[in-house]
């Protein structure tokens, strides 16, 4: 197989992406799919805000509003934020640790296609009767009563499939980071984003199984006559809430820790200073992950767990503010005395600190169980979690997009347009959500599709809707920026920002298929910076140039995930139509058959020979 780049037709490119096991191309896939779901979730958010713009509005009424609201939350968390973070992990982690590939390229591709088909299945519900309508938490007492259409079944099976994909992705990153670090890359020399990914993957490994169990129970109850959550038959509806939040709370750390990682990279790079308190950063990340498992019931203070349980979970929750505070101060001290360059990613990073701290402060307010009885189910909660998720995660995603775009695609996004996007998004974000604190404190309930006039909520809601449109315009400008850059963006060298510290900036942009012609020798934290400070232009190699072993592409991951997609349709309808069960079984046979093929076909990959590597390196953009 030749690796020499040449012009390919649309069909060939499509086939390439459908069969790829290259982590860099899987990153593109995650970015595109996650981006589309992000736009979809954003559209749903706009619809919500239009409905709430004035009292007694009838833009989306009752059930339809519930569906849009449920799908906004579910899409944004499972299908936009997580996959977009996975996009950056795939694009950057192997490069940051000096590896040629991930540990399980096939599994990595399978993880993507599982996520993709799960998300596709979930969104098919729009066209097949109705979307899930019990909120993104889908509490059993609501979702078991949602019998008008199959919405909840699409939620259950869609998230189950995409959840499998996420677990696969996490296992792949755990093994990659443990086993495939370049010589000299000790754990305490790993870049912060790699550390965050490692800890996040461990969180996914432990947090997703409770969700899987909960979803299986829910599937049994909805589709196969089970009674796990049905109190009338001896079940317990509260179990779902616990299982969901045992997953759901670590889930928010699964989102925010990689975001912290992205910001840590950006702060160090554009302050042109070593990250302040590196080891305390690592320790804080691990501590947040550890504590994150002991606080889930703070989402359930009003369920009636009793004062002792509430007190324990309240105190545990407040302790999380400590390692998070450590991180905030470390970022501030990283900037202090640095030679700061205000690029677009740095704009997001600087804006992130006050925005996220505001979300953190309301978080501590909410963690006081007694006070939570007042805040519960009001717009105050909505304001809180949008401050941490938009002010933390979405800012990080936008910052990461600008920061790593040159590395992923070899072209620099337009900085002027980037800064316009930033300002519009930043203003729009605070306009939308700041006022919601006060709407909540004056009693506006969340998840209700309308409100009456003369309760003092008109102005607040209108301001909030205006803010949402600012964010929408910002997103459109980002898309325009991407199109312009793709068409006529300037090609960039390997060290696109000129201040790269970590290994990914030492190789060409976009990197060659084998990443590193020679595995680098890592001599300290910020390995590339270290070499540059000693006047070198390249990394010190740890091995002579030789043949490089690479995995073969495979169509099987797509087929395995597609089988589950078909099976999910079959089982959703197996109680209503005769074709349901056979289709379900057919889908499982497709999946199991292709897994069998994967097991029996010997695939030893191929080698890129030394001469080819030399030729590619000579042609490469990397000087």
């Amino acid at each position, binding site marked *: 197989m030749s690796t020499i780049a040449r012009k390919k037709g649309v069909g060939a490119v499509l086939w390439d992406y459908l069969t790829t096991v290259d982590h860099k191309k899987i990153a593109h896939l995650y970015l595109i799919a996650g981006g589309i779901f992000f736009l979809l979730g954003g559209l749903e958010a706009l619809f919500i805000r239009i409905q709430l713009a004035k009292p007694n509005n009838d833009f989306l009424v009752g059930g339809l509003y519930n569906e849009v609201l449920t799908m906004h939350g579910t899409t944004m968390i499972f299908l936009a934020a997580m996959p977009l973070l996975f996009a950056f992990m795939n694009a950057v982690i192997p490069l940051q640790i000096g590896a040629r590939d991930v540990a399980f390229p096939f599994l990595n591709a399978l993880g993507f296609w599982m996520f993709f088909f799960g998300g596709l299945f979930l969104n098919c519900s729009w066209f097949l009767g109705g979307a899930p309508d019990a909120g993104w938490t889908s509490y059993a007492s609501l979702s078991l009563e949602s019998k008008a259409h199959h919405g909840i079944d699409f939620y259950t099976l869609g998230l189950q499939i995409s959840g499998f994909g996420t677990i696969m992705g996490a296992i792949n990153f*755990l093994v990659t980071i*443990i086993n495939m670090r370049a010589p000299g890359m000790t754990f305490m020399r790993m870049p912060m984003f790699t550390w965050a990914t490692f800890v996040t993957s*461990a969180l996914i*490994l*432990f947090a997703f199984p*409770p969700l899987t169990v909960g979803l299986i129970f829910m599937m049994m109850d909805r589709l196969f006559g089970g009674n796990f959550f049905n109190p009338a038959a001896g079940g*317990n509806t*509260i*179990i779902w809430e*616990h299982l969901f939040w*045992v997953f759901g709370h670590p889930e928010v750390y699964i989102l925010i820790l990689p975001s912290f990682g992205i910001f840590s990279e950006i702060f160090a790079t554009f302050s042109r200073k070593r990250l302040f308190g590196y080891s305390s950063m690592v320790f804080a990340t691990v501590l947040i992950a550890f504590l994150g*498992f*002991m606080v889930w*019931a703070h989402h359930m203070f009003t369920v009636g*767990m*009793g004062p002792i*349980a509430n007190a324990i979970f309240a105190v545990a929750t407040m302790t999380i503010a400590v390692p998070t505070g450590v991180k905030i101060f470390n970022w501030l001290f990283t900037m202090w005395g640095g030679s700061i360059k205000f690029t677009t990613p740095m704009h997001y990073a600087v804006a992130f600190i006050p925005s996220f701290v505001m979300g953190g402060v309301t978080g501590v307010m909410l963690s006081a169980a007694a006070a939570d009885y007042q805040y519960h189910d009001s717009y105050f909660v909505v304001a809180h979690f949008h401050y941490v998720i938009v002010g933390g995660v979405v800012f990080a995603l936008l910052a990461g997009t600008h920061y790593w775009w040159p590395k992923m695609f070899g072209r620099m996004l337009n900085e002027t347009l980037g800064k316009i996007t930033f300002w519009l998004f930043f203003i729009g974000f605070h306009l939308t959500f700041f006022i919601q604190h006060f709407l909540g404190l004056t009693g506006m309930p969340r998840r209700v599709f309308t409100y009456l006039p003369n309760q003092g909520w008109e102005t607040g809601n209108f301001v909030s809707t205006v803010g949402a449109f600012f964010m929408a315009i910002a997103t459109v400008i980002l898309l325009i920026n991407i199109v312009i850059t793709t068409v006529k963006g300037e090609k960039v060298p390997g060290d696109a920002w000129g201040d790269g510290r970590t290994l990914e900036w030492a190789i060409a942009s976009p990197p060659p298929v084998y990443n590193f012609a020679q595995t680098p020798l890592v001599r300290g934290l910020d390995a590339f910076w270290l070499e540059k400070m000693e006047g070198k232009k390249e990394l010190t190699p740890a091995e002579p140039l030789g043949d490089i072993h690479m995995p073969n592409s495979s169509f099987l991951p797509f087929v395995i995930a597609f089988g589950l997609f078909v099976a999910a349709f079959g089982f959703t309808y197996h109680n209503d139509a005769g074709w349901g069960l056979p289709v379900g079984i057919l889908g499982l046979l497709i999946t199991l058959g292709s897994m069998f093929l994967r097991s029996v076909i010997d695939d030893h990959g191929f080698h890129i020979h030394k001469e080819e590597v030399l030729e590619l390196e000579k042609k490469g953009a990397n000087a």
Partner: protein
Amino acid sequence: MANQTNSGNERVDLAYRRRKNAEEMRHQVIAFVLMILLTLIAFAAVGYEEFSHWFVVPFILLLAAVQVAFQLYYFMHMSHKGHEFPAMFIYGGVAVMLLLVWAFTTVIWW
């Protein structure tokens, strides 16, 4: 893991490896005998009418935990070097599960 050495020359450490393997084998045999013994004790505990359920259930669960430890450490070589990460993740998972079961039994089913 026992066969992995840093030396390319097999004869250098042959005697050492022989001794190591013999020791390993002895441990496995002892563990195996103990495991059979523990199984017999578990059966006996269940079979003996005089013991109340309140004693038998925790008792055989304890024996099961010991069995799992034997399995992991003697037969799956977790006692050897290079198993720190699997051990960490296994104990992490066990800790999360215990916390969950403990919380569920105290908060939901009290």
